[in-house]
C-alpha cells in the first residue's frame, strides 16, 4: 500500500442538478505521470479540485502518503506538498514574476534596518536559481502583464516548486499553447518526473497522454470507466472508453451537389483599429451545398473576413452580396434576417450571454419576432417551449435544463447550444469560425456531422479553421489566407494537406 502517494477512495461530489463525481477511486504512485482523461464536463477538474482543497467531497476519503486527510483549503493542500496549475492562471498581473511566486510565503527582511518587509531582492535570486535548476528560464523581474501565455504557465509551475510541491496537478495545461510550446511543456513534465515529482495531468488530448503518461484513468460523466497502462493501450481504445462508444476519426462525406451562388465577396478590404489593412482585396464566392473553407495560420485576416460578412466590423472597400443583394452596408440584424448564421470563434464573448439562461440564449436571434415577442411584450412560454425542443433535438446537456445559466455549462455544450440556435435560423449561409476549438473528440465529431448535414441540406457553408485536418476533412473548396490576402482557391480534391500547409506559410501560387 505504501507505494501509493495519493489515494482517493469512493469519492462522490454533487453540484445542484449534476453528480460531478460518482464513486470514483484512483490511486497514484509516487514518481509517475498519471493522466486523467475524459470529455469536457466528465468531472476531471472537479476530482482534482477536491485533492487541492477547493471543494470538499460529499462522500469518500482521501489518503496522502498512506495517511487519511481532510483537505479543506488550498493552503492545507500546499502544506501536504500538493500544487496545482489551474486552467485559468491565478496570477496578479501588475506584479513581477517574483512577487507572484512568493505571495503568501514571503521571505522576511528589514526595511531601513528595523521595519519588517518582504525580501524581494533575495527572492529574485532564489527564483532565478530555481528556474535554472528545472530548465524553466524566466526573468524574475518582469511583470506578468508583459509576458506570454507560455511564460505565465512556467510561473505557475515555479510557484508550485517554490512551495516544495511533490504532487503536481496540471489542469488542461496545453489548451492555451502552440504546438512547439506543447512539446516544450511535455519535456518539462518529463523532467519533473525524473527529479522525483508525482505528476497528475488532466487532459482530453489523447496524443499528449500517449507521449508522456505512465498510467491513465478515464472518466465518463462523473464515473470512473477504467485505469489503463498507457504503453500497452492504443489511442483508439482510450477514445472509445472516454466517449463511451465507437469513435470514428475519419469524416464520412457524401458527394457534393452544388447549387446557385449564395455569398459573393468581391475585393473586400478591412482595416483594423490602427488603420492597417488586415484583409486585402479578397474575393470568393460560396454556393449552395458547398463547404468553402478558409485555411491559414492564426491572425492572417480570416476572422476579420467573417466579422465583415456578418457586419460586426465595417468593410473599408469591396462589396459583399447575399443572393445577389448588396449587404455591404447593412446592419447586423438585417443580415441575420436576410439569411446569415454565425458560429463565432469566441463563443463566450460573442456567441453567448453567459449569465443568461439557456432558453434565453437559444432564442437570442429570434426574440424580437413572434411568437417570442408579441406587441413588444416577451412571451416566456414561447422561450421555454423553443428551449426544450432544441435541448431535445440537439442533445444539449445542462444541469437544470432550460433555466441553466450558460456560464455553468461545459464548453462542448455551450457550442452545441450556439450551433443549435444558428441552424434553427434556417439561414442560407452559415459561417463557422473555429467550430471545434477547445472541444473533446465526442463533441468535435458531433459538430462535424452537423456541418456536413447542413451542407447536404443545401446550405452554403463558410468554414474558417486553424486545424488543417478539419479543413482537409470537410471542405469542398479551399482558400488559403496569408497576411490578409487570399493566396489560392481550389477544389479540395486537387490539394494535399502539405500543399495547403505551404500556402499557409506564405509560399505564393505560381
Amino acid at each position, binding site marked *: 500500500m505504501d507505494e501509493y502517494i495519493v489515494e482517493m477512495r469512493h469519492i462522490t461530489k454533487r453540484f445542484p442538478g449534476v453528480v460531478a463525481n460518482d464513486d470514483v477511486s484512483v490511486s497514484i504512485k509516487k514518481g509517475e505521470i498519471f493522466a486523467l482523461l475524459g470529455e469536457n464536463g466528465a468531472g476531471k477538474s472537479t476530482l482534482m479540485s477536491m485533492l487541492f482543497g477547493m471543494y470538499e467531497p460529499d462522500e469518500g476519503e482521501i489518503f496522502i502518503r498512506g495517511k487519511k486527510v481532510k483537505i479543506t483549503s488550498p493552503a492545507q493542500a500546499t502544506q501536504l506538498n500538493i500544487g496545482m496549475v489551474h486552467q485559468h492562471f491565478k496570477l496578479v498581473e501588475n506584479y513581477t514574476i517574483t512577487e507572484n511566486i512568493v*505571495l503568501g510565503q514571503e521571505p522576511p527582511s528589514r526595511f531601513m534596518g528595523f521595519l519588517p518587509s518582504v525580501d524581494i531582492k533575495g527572492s529574485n535570486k532564489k527564483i532565478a536559481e530555481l528556474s535554472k535548476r528545472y530548465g524553466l528560464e524566466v526573468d524574475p523581474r518582469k511583470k506578468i502583464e508583459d509576458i506570454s501565455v507560455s511564460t505565465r504557465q512556467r510561473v505557475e509551475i515555479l*510557484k508550485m516548486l517554490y512551495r516544495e510541491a511533490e504532487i503536481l496537478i496540471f489542469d488542461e495545461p496545453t489548451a492555451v499553447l502552440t504546438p512547439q510550446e506543447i512539446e516544450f511543456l511535455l519535456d518539462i513534465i518529463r523532467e519533473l518526473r525524473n527529479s522525483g515529482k508525482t505528476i497528475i495531468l488532466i487532459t482530453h488530448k489523447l496524443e499528449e497522454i500517449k507521449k508522456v503518461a505512465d498510467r491513465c484513468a478515464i472518466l465518463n460523466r462523473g464515473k470512473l470507466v477504467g485505469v489503463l497502462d498507457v504503453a500497452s493501450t492504443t489511442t483508439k481504445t482510450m477514445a472509445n472508453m472516454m466517449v463511451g462508444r465507437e469513435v470514428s476519426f475519419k469524416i464520412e462525406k457524401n458527394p457534393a451537389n452544388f447549387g446557385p451562388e449564395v455569398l459573393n465577396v468581391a475585393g473586400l478590404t478591412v482595416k483594423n483599429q490602427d488603420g492597417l489593412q488586415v484583409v486585402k482585396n479578397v474575393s470568393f464566392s460560396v454556393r449552395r451545398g458547398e463547404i468553402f473553407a478558409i485555411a491559414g495560420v492564426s491572425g492572417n485576416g480570416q476572422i476579420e473576413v467573417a466579422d465583415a460578412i456578418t457586419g460586426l466590423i465595417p468593410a473599408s472597400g469591396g462589396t459583399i452580396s447575399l443572393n445577389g443583394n448588396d449587404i455591404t452596408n447593412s446592419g447586423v440584424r438585417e443580415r441575420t434576417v436576410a439569411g446569415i448564421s454565425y458560429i463565432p470563434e469566441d463563443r463566450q464573448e460573442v456567441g453567448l450571454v453567459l449569465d443568461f439562461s439557456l432558453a434565453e440564449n437559444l432564442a437570442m436571434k429570434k426574440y424580437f419576432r413572434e411568437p417570442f415577442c408579441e406587441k413588444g411584450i416577451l412571451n416566456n412560454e414561447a422561450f421555454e417551449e423553443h428551449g426544450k425542443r432544441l435541448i431535445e433535438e440537439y442533445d444539449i446537456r445542462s444541469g437544470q435544463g432550460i433555466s441553466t445559466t450558460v456560464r455553468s455549462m461545459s464548453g462542448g455544450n455551450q457550442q452545441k447550444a450556439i450551433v443549435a440556435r444558428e441552424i434553427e435560423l434556417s439561414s442560407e449561409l452559415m459561417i463557422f469560425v473555429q467550430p471545434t476549438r477547445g472541444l473533446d473528440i465526442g463533441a468535435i465529431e458531433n459538430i462535424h456531422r452537423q456541418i456536413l448535414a447542413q451542407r447536404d441540406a443545401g446550405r452554403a457553408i463558410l468554414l474558417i479553421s486553424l486545424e488543417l485536418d478539419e479543413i482537409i476533412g470537410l471542405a469542398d473548396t479551399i482558400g488559403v489566407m496569408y497576411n490578409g490576402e487570399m493566396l489560392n482557391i481550389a477544389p479540395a480534391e486537387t490539394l494535399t494537406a502539405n500543399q495547403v500547409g505551404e500556402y499557409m506559410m506564405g509560399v505564393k501560387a505560381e
Partner: protein
Amino acid sequence: MDIIIIEGLAFALPLFIIAIGGIYSERSGITNLALEGFLGFGAFIGAAAVTAFTRGNVAGIEVQMFFVALLFSVIGGAVFAMLHALLCIPFKANQVISGVVINILAVALTAFFTSQINSVIFGKPTNKFVLGVCEKFTVPGISKIPILGAFFTDVYYYVPIIIVVALFASYVLYKSRFGLRLRACGDNPHAVDAAGVDVSKVRFIAVMISGALSGLGGICFAYSISTSFSPSIYAGYGFLAIAALIFGNWKIGPTLGACLLFGFARSAGYKLAQVLELASTFSDIIMILPYVLTLLLLMFFSSTNRPPRALGEIYDKGKR
C-alpha cells in the same frame, strides 16, 4: 503668497490622509465611496469625546484634548468602517450602494447624536460641538527663507502627524508583507486565495484602515476649517479625496500631488476673493474652484488611468 501655501497645506494634508484611506480600501478591491461618511463619523466621535470629557471647558488643556480627539476619531472611523466592510465582504452587497447609504447614515446619525449629547450636557440641543483651532508652530530659522519658509510657518500640529502616518502607510502598502497581499487582492483575489491567504480578512482590515485614516483627516478638518464639529463637516471633502486618489492613479505619491493641487487651488481662490474685494456672498463661488479643477482634470487624465483590476468585484471563490 505665503498665506496661500500655509492655508493650502493645512487643507491638502487632511485631504491626503483621507485619500490614502481610500487607496487602502480600493487597492484591496473594495470600492469606497463612503470616505465622506467615515471622516464625518470619525470626527464626530473625536469631538464628542472631547465634549464629554471637558463639558465645554477646554481652557488650558487644548493640546491634550486635541490628541484625545485624534485618538477617538481614528477609533471611531475604524469601527464605523466595519459597517462598510461587513456589507461588502461577508454579505456581498453592492459596494457603490453600500458607500452611498453609509454616507447618508453618517449624516443622520451624527446630527441626531450631536443634539442629543448637547441637550444632556448643556441642556441645549444644538447641532454643534465647539472645538477651537488646533495649535500651530513655526520652525525658527527655516521659516525665514522666502517662499520655502512658508511651509514651515504657522504649521498646524496635525501636519507633522499626518506626514508621519502617511510615510508609515506608504511603507506598509509598498514594502510590507501585508501590503503585498493587499495590493494583490485588488488585482486578482483568486491568486491570493490560491496562495493560501484569506482574501476576506485582508480586505476587511483594509477597509478598517480606510476608516481610521478618514477619521484622522476628518478631525483635522474639524480643528481647522470649521473649528467645530457640525453637519457642515460633510462638505464633499471625502469625494474630493476620491477624486485625488483617482488622479493619483491609486498610488500614494501622485495622490499627494493631486491633494496639494486641490489645497493650493482652494487657498489661492480665497486669496483671489480677498484681492478682488468680493462680497462674502460671492466667496462661495470661489469654493467651487477645487471642484471645477476636478472636472477639468477628469477630462484630461481619466483615459490614462488604470484602476485596480478587481475593484468593486465581489469575490466569489467558485466563479471561474
